[in-house]
């Protein structure tokens, strides 16, 4: 069990974070760059001393600014996977791993390092190479073996996939997810990518401007974002508007969008709000199509862009607010979607989230 409470100022950022992670669970700390994610990791590892706070891990107190406790990083036993791995460039892969095994007798370090590397798919031939001679994926696995070799009490991962190219990333992500599920100690992972957070974290905490704005499972964050920022971060299309009225009989909230258009939602809301909907909830119909039930939002839109991603097609729309729909390739062909085409975007009121801005 890891429990962290810290407050510190880093430049213009005022960081104030409290989080706890049970053993065997992985918390993904997600947010845009500059939100303070890496600062939290560095403070937990002891590489940075916060102005105030307390960190306990596995029954030991690592930091207690009120009580004057600040354990040195080498005494905390954190496995730390750095963003671009920070492998020692002058040492071969196995020596990088053996470096952390200094509690073993000297002659046992090499066999143990090779064994660890082998469990990460790095054979003896690659183990003798320097980091500069390894590929990105190989470097990541060497760094993981190095971080986990000394049996850490906590694993910290800073953007573990960002240094990999797109082809390597999917496979490495699945491998890492499996490793994190098998891990018996708490883990904290930092990422700016919601998909990565959802894949690797048991829970996701969204960090914005130095504060955790929402925490929950990735599915819960996507289904019920606490703010327009979180909705946007989970990949929803976010519109801004103002609540007009709440119908007593239908129970729908009616929102006038900034720049024109009206949508209704089953969520309650007041004043200035953010309205969000996941792109795959949105369908596209021809401009002259017949109106559906009142439980559907129907907004006239102009197609701005059509981008094929795998078997789905992402359609950029202007409501006039920018908006996104995800449809099949068949509907693109059926509707003749191309930039400049006039269409109607349709989605259910029940799929519409209303949150504070």
């Amino acid at each position, binding site marked *: 069990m890891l429990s962290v409470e810290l407050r510190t100022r880093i430049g213009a950022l005022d960081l104030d974070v409290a989080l706890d992670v049970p053993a065997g669970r992985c918390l993904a700390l997600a947010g845009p760059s500059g939100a303070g994610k890496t600062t939290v990791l*560095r403070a937990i*590892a*002891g*590489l940075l001393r916060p102005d105030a706070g307390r960190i306990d891990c596995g029954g030991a107190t690592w930091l207690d600014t009120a009580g004057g406790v600040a354990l*040195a*990083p*080498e005494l*905390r*036993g*954190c*496995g*730390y996977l*750095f963003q671009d791995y*920070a*492998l*020692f*460039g*002058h*040492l071969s892969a196995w020596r990088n791993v053996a*470096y*952390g095994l*200094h*509690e073993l007798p000297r002659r046992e370090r090499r066999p143990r390092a090779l064994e660890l590397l082998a469990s990460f798919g790095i054979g003896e031939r690659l183990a003798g190479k320097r980091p500069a001679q390894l590929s990105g994926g190989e470097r990541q696995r060497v760094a993981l073996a*190095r*971080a986990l070799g*000394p049996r850490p009490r906590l694993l910290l991962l800073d953007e573990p996939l960002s240094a990999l190219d797109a082809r390597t990333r999917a496979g490495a992500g699945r491998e890492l997810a499996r490793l994190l599920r098998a891990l018996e100690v708490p883990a904290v992972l930092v990422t700016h990518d919601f998909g990565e957070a959802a894949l690797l974290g048991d829970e996701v905490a969204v960090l914005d401007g130095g504060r955790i704005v929402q925490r929950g499972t990735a599915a819960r964050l996507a289904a019920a974002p606490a703010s327009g920022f979180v909705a946007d971060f989970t990949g929803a299309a976010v519109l801004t508007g103002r609540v007009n009225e709440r119908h007593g009989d239908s129970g729908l909230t009616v929102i006038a969008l900034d720049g024109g258009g009206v949508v209704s939602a089953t969520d309650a809301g007041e004043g200035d709000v953010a309205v969000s909907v996941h792109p795959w909830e949105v369908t596209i119909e021809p401009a002259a199509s017949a109106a559906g039930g009142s439980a559907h939002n129907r907004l006239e839109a102009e197609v701005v862009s059509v981008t094929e991603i795998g078997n789905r097609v992402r359609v950029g729309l202007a409501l006039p607010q920018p908006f996104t729909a995800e449809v099949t390739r068949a509907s693109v062909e059926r509707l003749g979607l191309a930039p400049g085409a006039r269409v109607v975007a349709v989605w259910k009121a029940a799929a519409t989230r209303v949150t504070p801005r």
Partner: protein
Amino acid sequence: MAGAAAQGAGAPGGVGGALRRAWFPALLGIALTATVLFLTLPIVAIFVDSGPGRLLDALGDPSSRDALRLSLVTTTIAMAVVVVVGTPAAYLLATRRFRGRELVVTLVELPLVLPPAVAGIGLLAALGPRGLLGGALEDAGIRLVLETAGVVVALVFVSAPFFLRAAQTAFAAVDPRWHEASRTLGASEARTFVRIAVPAALPGLAAGLALAWGRALGEFGATLMFAGSFRGITQTVPLAIYDRFATDFDGALALSAVLVAVSAGLLLSVKLIARDALR
């Protein structure tokens, strides 16, 4: 080049255009040629004038051997002092930010711009019999002036800044996250310094050592003023060369050739050892 010339011929100006384009690379080439010629000419002349036979004669002369032995012993001790004290000092300067850091950096570089005569006077004023610390040294039974130990002090003073500068640059170039990674892997600051920072900075440290050693081998002015020129005690090779210069030019020439050969050999071996250590 031919393509560029052909284009030049087609362009307005013809041959004149090509000339106008070629003058700058030509100027660079002339400047480099002049530099290399000027800087190597004296060294070439020393070997051409002395010849291999005279070189061996110079080594056979007992006073030359004394000077060479003294130079090797004093520079080796001086380099040991410079490396043992200078390496951690440079590490501190390179890896920490503290108030007055810039001032400290400037102070340790000051001997670089000091004329050797001024360095000698300064050492006398500080450590001589009537110097600042002269009384304290005398009470402790330490005599430096006109002693071999004084030569070592003078060599450390003039050569340390060369090593410190290079070592600082080398440590500053080591990825700071390697320090952090080392700490999270259970290594203390001291272990990180020994096992990560020094090996990673080794090529730069070796280059600094080679520079400092070369400077120490050639040291003349400060040694002469602070330690004097007594054969077998303080007369290093440069002092022995100067001693002979008036009476035995050929002998001075041969000894110079020996010094050049020894310096070049040291420079080369320090660099090679550092390169092999990284393998």
